[in-house]
């Protein structure tokens, strides 16, 4: 074995160690998030319930929100009104529930998540260096890159001072799941690419595909929580009394309207990039296989994912389809993306058989 190959082997080992270390740190972060939720539950929030069950009819006409939607300037004050037909409910206080201890654990969790992210990113880079190409040649590599990007996007949105701390726990849980699956079942030794994958389009097409998936995933988390929170609000508004656990969790989440808006923005923002990803893939296929579009299973499912997201965007623009119906479409669309990612690679055979499993 020559020297270069030995270095590469070393780098590959370093990458593996980093990935395992990041899993350990993510686990710590996971525990810290749990602590945040547990300590947060000791507070008496009860704001959602008050907003929805109080004397709604004589409630003040306009809610000046305490959160981000009131833009305070030196003199004139902007008063916002939520869109017609949506409940005027304030956002919950977040997992920490306004408690100091919860907040402390929340901060610890975010620091740990950041650390884990850096370690994991290091693992991805080491992997890339060991193979001297983009680290996207097989499913193991997709999976580690995917979770890194998901966490990166989450941290970036946090850094932009947007209210997304609520997504921390579900996110880290799934990242651990993703890494567990990757290391246990999808692991492939670091290696070079088969000629068909070896192209600069790999950088373009696969990086955007992974990025889109990460953002769609955040959208799906938002949508799912929206559905829960919406039922909770509806139950309260109808005079019902949700269980203690549901109340404790749900009242700390942002309002259904905020979650819905978050999910929509995230999905809409990344949809043009997803369109681009598919087109870039078609151009690459044209070069590699002599046809731009051949209804290969992977192509079919990218197309389906695209059409269902388009459907979701249309639903948002169509009266009577907003809200829960659109949310189901969004979840279905993400389901298609996920199936395209795992299912098509593993269960269907086609030209995109690079799973390495």
């Amino acid at each position, binding site marked *: *074995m020559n020297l270069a190959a030995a270095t590469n082997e070393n780098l590959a080992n370093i990458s593996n160690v980093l990935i395992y270390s990041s899993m350990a740190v993510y686990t710590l972060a996971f525990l810290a998030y749990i602590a945040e939720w547990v300590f947060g539950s000791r507070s008496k929030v009860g704001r959602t319930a008050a907003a929805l069950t109080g004397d709604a009819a004589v*409630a003040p*006409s*306009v809610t000046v929100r305490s959160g*981000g*939607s009131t*833009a305070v*300037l*030196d*003199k*004139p004050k*902007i*008063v916002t*009104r*939520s*869109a*017609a*037909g949506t409940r005027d409910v304030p956002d919950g206080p977040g997992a920490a529930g306004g408690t100091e201890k919860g907040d402390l654990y929340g901060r610890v969790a975010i620091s740990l998540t950041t650390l884990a992210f850096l370690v994991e990113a290091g693992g991805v880079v080491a992997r890339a260096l060991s193979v001297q190409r983009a680290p996207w040649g097989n499913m193991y590599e997709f999976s580690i890159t995917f979770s890194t990007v998901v966490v990166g996007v989450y941290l970036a949105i946090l850094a932009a001072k947007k209210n997304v701390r609520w997504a921390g726990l579900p996110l880290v849980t799934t990242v651990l799941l993703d890494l567990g699956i990757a290391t246990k079942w999808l692991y492939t*030794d670091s*290696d*070079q690419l*088969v*000629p068909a994958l*070896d*192209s600069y389009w790999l950088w373009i097409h696969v990086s955007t595909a992974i990025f889109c998936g990460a953002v769609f995933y955040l959208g799906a988390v938002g949508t799912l929580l929206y559905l829960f929170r919406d039922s909770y609000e509806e139950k309260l508004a109808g005079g019902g009394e949700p269980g203690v656990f549901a109340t404790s969790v749900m009242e700390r989440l942002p309002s259904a309207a905020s979650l819905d*808006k978050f999910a929509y*923005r995230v999905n809409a923002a990344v*949809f*043009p990039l997803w*369109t*681009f990803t598919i*087109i870039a893939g078609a151009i*690459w296929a044209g*070069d*590699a*296989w*002599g046809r*731009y*579009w051949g*209804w*290969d299973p992977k192509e*079919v*499912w990218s*197309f*389906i994912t695209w*059409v*269902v997201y388009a*459907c979701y965007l*249309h639903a*948002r*623009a*169509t*009266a*009577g*389809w*907003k*809200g829960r119906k659109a949310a189901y*479409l969004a979840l279905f669309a993400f389901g298609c993306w996920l199936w395209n990612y795992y299912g*098509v690679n593993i269960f*269907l055979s086609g030209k995109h058989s690079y799973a390495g499993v």
Partner: protein
Amino acid sequence: MSKTETDEAAATAAEESELGEAGAQLSTAPQERSVPGSFGGVMQPGAAGRIAWAWRETTGWVRWFWRQLTSMRVALILLFLLSLGAIPGSLVPQTGVDETKVEEFRAAHETLAPIYDDLGLFNVYSSVWFSAIYILLFVSLIGCIVPRTWQFVGQLRSRPPGAPGRLTRLPAYTTWRTETDPEQVRAAALAMLKQRRFRSHTVGDAVAAEKGYLREAGNLMFHIALIVMLVSFATGQLFKSEGGKLVVEGGGFANTLTQYDDFKSGSLFDRDHDLAPFSFKLDKFVGTYERSGPQRGTPRTYEAHVTYAKGADGAEKKAKIEVNEPLEVDGSKVYLIGHGYAPVVTVRDGRGKEVFKDAVPLLPMDSNVTSSGAIKVMDGYRDKNGKKEQLGFAAFFVPTFAGAGKGTMLSQYPGLDFPVLALNAYHGSLGVNAGLPQNVYQLDKRKMKEFKDDQGAMLKQRLLPGETMKLPNGAGSITFEKDVKQWATFQISQQPGNVPALAGAIAAIAGLAGSLFIQRRRVWVRAVRGEDGVTVVEMAGLGRSESSKLPEELADLAATLNSQAPTAPDPAEPAPVEGVRA
């Protein structure tokens, strides 16, 4: 619709009617409307009455159907159907993708296959029902775009609507009192809004402004681009041509119909005139493979080095074709599709005369390029009695042999490390004159007899390069020459419409970005003199879709205007907002 949704729809409607004109035409999305189930109205007695009624009824229904088809809801449903309809094509093998898999499926599912055939499940994407979905969708799309475009042009030519009566009703609102005259405030507001590139004008006591028309333009561009893409694909299908050719190192190809091994073309392609005249020669094929590790044998590079010339006798140029990098000549693309080995063999007759010498392409059977095929000596051979006969050899080839005594003739590695050729020899008639097309890789043994060895068993032998197999009784010999050539298969395709399709794709992405990232919004600034002689300024904003930017933008505008019309020092705290929630 659940109760809450009905409530929400009602609330939306109430809200919109309350805003009146202000919210109208903020987009060109079609309105949802319900239409009665009968259009004919009262039927007058007599034939004329009946005809008139039938006419009204027909046109009514046609209009109803058209409105349904071009509504957003139906577009939504059709889009959803399109996504569902695409699914079976990924689960059932498709003739357009992999014919052999379809055959295997047919053999394995005898009862299911005819049903699938009837449902068009083996070619979903050209089936009647799938075509129906997308054709309806595109008709709907056109029926949607045309009126929307006109509407948009109308909106561009008209001006933003005047301020609604109560600005407090709008999603973002602010107010303050100032000593500045109302006229001055309005003038300042107009100047500011114009400077920020709002389309603005003063109506009565308020300035009305609007911005973000590019959103609508982008949206229309996106939908039109979809049509452009579909039309380009369709024309591409009609005018395309695609053929395959196997070329052995040293061999060449000229782009005429007769040279192709197989050829397909769209229904409007003119086979005699539309093929671009060019030719190429395969100088060398280079394949490298992983040498060690668990992925030993995985291909790393495939390169076909060619010399090509454009036109009948253009200048020769060298080029390298790789898997991801086709050669483009005169509008045609030459793709590298596959490769294999072609051992060179020499066949001599009983008198030692050379009757055949050629590189024989063999068909790879596994990833280590274990190959099989047939060597056919059609003419020139005479047996020891001088009688004309044909010879056939079933050939089996491995580029890397496991070693003598180590099991079967299966290749261990795709590179040429230890080539071995195994042959069975036959004589008789190859049956090639029967006029039926013959598979070049197979021997038709019906009229052939085996050569026997000394023991009377079938003659077979494994040869190393340079070795010769003698045929019994002075029937001649066959030599496996030291030279093993490689061959490559090329796909030569010509598909017009790629350029407009790409342009459409780029326009689609640009339009989409405009449609999703740009906000269309209206801002009103009202300035009136209050009862105490102090001017009351009110500002409000309205957007079409959910955006957190609207309040921020309004805040910014208000701050700017406020610096020109400062808040009046007022001891009595002005009630900022009034009114009861609807």
